[in-house]
């Protein structure tokens, strides 16, 4: 069984006006110029490469960091690279208000942790609020509880991982996962 509490420093993805980005699409996450790449190790350098303000994200992000973003994250194409590029950089979790339909499947099937939590987005929504870039949070994937490091009380509660999501995460990816036979 893998780690149930993920901990890391947060990156709150904001547009140039300081608002949390909504509808970040897969071309902004991983541009179609690099679709022919099939080696995951090469994908990290292009993560968020087409998102204004985050073109150099790969240079600053550290292993274990957590990304926070708004509605419909990962809208657009079906490219697995848009998930794999974050895995390549060691991003430990993405928390968003809501997730694009295909992106959600791609993250779950590759065992990459992703969680929806409209509440945390409100906390992080305006600069100066409870949550800012660089804060360290602890997230329990089983209960959805989100706490700031060193604090006892929850600041928000996300949607706990579903059964299939947890099982695939534990197995590593969908290929290593043996479905329950009922």
């Amino acid at each position, binding site marked *: 069984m893998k780690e149930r509490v993920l901990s890391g420093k947060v990156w709150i993805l904001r547009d140039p006006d300081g608002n949390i980005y909504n509808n970040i699409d897969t071309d902004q996450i991983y541009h179609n110029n690099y679709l022919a790449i099939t080696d995951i190790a090469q994908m990290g350098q292009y993560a968020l490469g087409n998102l204004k303000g985050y073109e150099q994200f790969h240079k600053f992000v550290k292993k274990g960091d957590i990304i926070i973003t708004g509605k419909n994250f990962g809208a657009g194409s*079906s490219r697995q690279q848009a998930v794999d590029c974050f895995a390549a950089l060691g991003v430990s979790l993405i928390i968003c208000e809501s997730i694009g339909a295909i992106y959600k499947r791609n993250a779950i099937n590759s065992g990459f942790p992703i969680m929806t939590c409209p509440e945390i987005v409100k906390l992080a929504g305006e600069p100066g609020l409870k949550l800012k870039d660089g804060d360290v949070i602890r997230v329990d994937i089983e209960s959805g509880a989100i706490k700031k490091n060193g604090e006892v009380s929850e600041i928000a509660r996300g949607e706990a991982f579903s059964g299939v999501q947890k099982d695939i995460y534990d197995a590593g990816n969908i290929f290593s996962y043996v479905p329950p036979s009922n």
Partner: protein
Amino acid sequence: MGHTIVEKIFKNHLIHPGDDVKPGNIVWIKLDVRSARDFGGANVVKNIKKYYPGQNVADPSKTYFTFDCQAPANTIPYANNQQSCRLFAKEHGIRVFDVNAGIGSHVLIESGIALPGTTIVGTDSHLNIMGAVGAFGQGMGDMDIAYAMRHGATWFEIPPSVRINVKGVLKFPATAKDLTLFILKKFGSAGLLGSSVEFYGEAIDALEMHERITLSSMATEMGAIVAIIPADKKTAEYFRAISAEAKFETIKADSDAKYAEEHTIDISDLVPQVACPPSPENVSDASELKNIKVNSVFIGSCTNGRYEDMEMAARAVAGKKVRPEIMAKIVPATHEVFQKMIETGIIKTLFEAGFIISNQGCGGCASGQIGMTGKNEVQISTSNRNFDGKQGDGKTYLASPLVAAMSAVNGYISFE
């Protein structure tokens, strides 16, 4: 309790027949068609080889490769990726619709492979276009598809269903694309997120197959899992014409089906719509955008690449000329569409008007194969996405084939 269309399709495909198809439940579903394009395909092959060494796909006769992103490949990596799919397909007895076939999703419909009531998956994010024929389609990443090809089944979370009633009928110059953009304007890119939308009403019943394709193709931009046009007599006739022996079920929702939301929109006064950059939800009346000069025009894509779309453009430009400063491009969706354009002669009309006519495929969308825009250039496109950087460095506006064609002739956004 009754079921919605997506629930009934899933119910017919359950691995464990007793499972409850209630929204939110996770169920295992049999897949009737599993496909991969040249985009994603190479990684599908890589995953199958890595995780299932020496094993075959579950059923080669239900498995397909469709090359449409870069057709033919014009970069070495794409050429290598396509070749790896071809070799894998040959070894495993899988059918390939190669670079001369056209857009995979359209080819699957035209060939009578994607039938009403079936479940279809592929690496194309617009595979939910299958809603047009009353089927369930889901675009997936390459791991998902590798698993689907190997096992012939996968997990799904039953989506909530949303019912949209459309009042009124489309009147020229409003087209199915304008209806589609109007819906995006109304609900936004995340308003229908994660739901299965069902469309009803007089306007929907009146839509021909190519128009249903336009509407369902943009489910992705609406954030929906799928946008279903309930299969009807027209759907059945369409597939009977392909094969008299075709077996399929036209699934209707139960009268007591439960919808998470129900909306009614009125399109009686609908006028041509345009989605302004950088988002498909950023929709205005075309008449408000007359001051925008156009540098590039693209007519094609899985949203507006059917013969009737080309015919609409040809009718608009017949005897007129594309302005000399405009790069105007036509890409038929499939071989069949191109063939018909030759037979009816509209290809001549378009060519003589000054359009560049390319071979069938995705053309303008995936890798800018038929040209991109430079900085500050304006493109008007019949495709489905106008995100920054998607079709070049310039700005992309989304519109119907009529608006695109008239803009090519007038030099600014227009429809007459």
